[in-house]
């Protein structure tokens, strides 16, 4: 393992061992959710806030399957299309759970779920003024990323591809630029489709990866969760190991001296 215990992942002052954050949506049932999260080794899980079904309040709850004492619940604002909606949602989330660490995402378009950065900046300012620790889903624009860091975000989370698309890391250059300038953790949020995508993100130097669909919509979500755990670890280790330079022509691996 990479420098083992020394390679802690710190967000807003809290240390984590796993650099994989997983969403808890789109699973067949809560049992599968819990098993996939367990297999992924994730310590932080994103959750959504929705109306209680008051006509059938006895239904099982996520918290019955994922203990908030064991996992760090990261409330998100998925589905919010304005700064006001996002701020309202996260204030309610803070009251429901008592957590200051949140994931902000303000979407701009139904078809691409691309972030609306104008609304995102506005919501960030309000939330930070209100005492929240904000991990922010954002575009891959290094100028926007710097602005969000200047506003006080505790993690910058550019998309590697559209949410739920599984297209992989479409923008390695932009992600790399954001990583180089950032003084807070940078995580790829969205776009990962399979384990090699997670490894690519980590090899670029990302501090972590956030994903949901790649695990939940795999044929075997539990096996894919385990693959993602290993890929994130492998990518991180490779990043520190330092890859060999790419060459145009072959270079024999066996010595040429002593050939018969």
């Amino acid at each position, binding site marked *: 393992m990479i420098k083992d215990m020394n390679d802690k992942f710190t967000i807003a002052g809290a240390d984590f061992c796993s650099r994989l954050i997983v969403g808890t949506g789109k*699973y067949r049932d809560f049992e599968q959710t819990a098993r996939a999260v367990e297999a992924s080794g994730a310590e932080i899980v994103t*959750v959504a806030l929705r109306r209680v079904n008051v006509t059938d*309040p006895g239904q099982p*709850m996520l918290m019955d399957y994922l203990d908030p004492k064991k996992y760090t619940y990261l409330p998100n604002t998925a589905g919010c299309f304005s700064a006001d909606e996002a701020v*309202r949602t996260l204030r*309610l989330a803070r009251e429901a759970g008592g957590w200051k660490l949140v994931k902000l995402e303000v979407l701009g378009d139904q078809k691409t779920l691309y972030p609306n950065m104008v609304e995102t900046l506005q919501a960030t300012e309000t939330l930070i003024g209100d005492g929240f620790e904000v991990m922010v889903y954002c575009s891959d624009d290094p100028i926007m990323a710097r602005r969000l860091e200047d506003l006080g975000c505790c993690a910058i989370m550019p998309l590697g591809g559209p949410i739920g698309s599984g297209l992989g890391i479409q923008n390695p250059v932009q992600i790399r630029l954001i990583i180089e300038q950032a003084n807070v953790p940078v995580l790829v949020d969205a776009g990962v489709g399979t384990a090699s995508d997670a490894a690519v993100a980590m090899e670029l130097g990302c501090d972590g990866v956030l994903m949901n669909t790649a695990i939940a919509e795999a044929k075997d979500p539990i096996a894919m969760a385990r693959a993602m755990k290993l890929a994130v670890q492998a990518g991180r280790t490779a990043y520190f190991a330092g890859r060999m330079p790419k060459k145009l022509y072959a270079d024999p691996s066996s010595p040429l001296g002593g050939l018969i």
Partner: protein
Amino acid sequence: MIEITLNGDRREIAADQTVTDLLQDLKLDPARVAVERNLEIIPKTTYQNVKLLSGDRLEIVYFIGGGS
């Protein structure tokens, strides 16, 4: 009886009910939800004292599975 709007639906409840009473009727654990009245969050610590009024618009929310 008074009429309130709960999570978008009209509902009749007894007059003089507190938030705690309502949550009990709904069999909801106060520790696991947040309650908003007329767009203002009601702090958990005050559920016992806050009485619901006719015309109140309440939202009761909780955490569900969700990703990005």
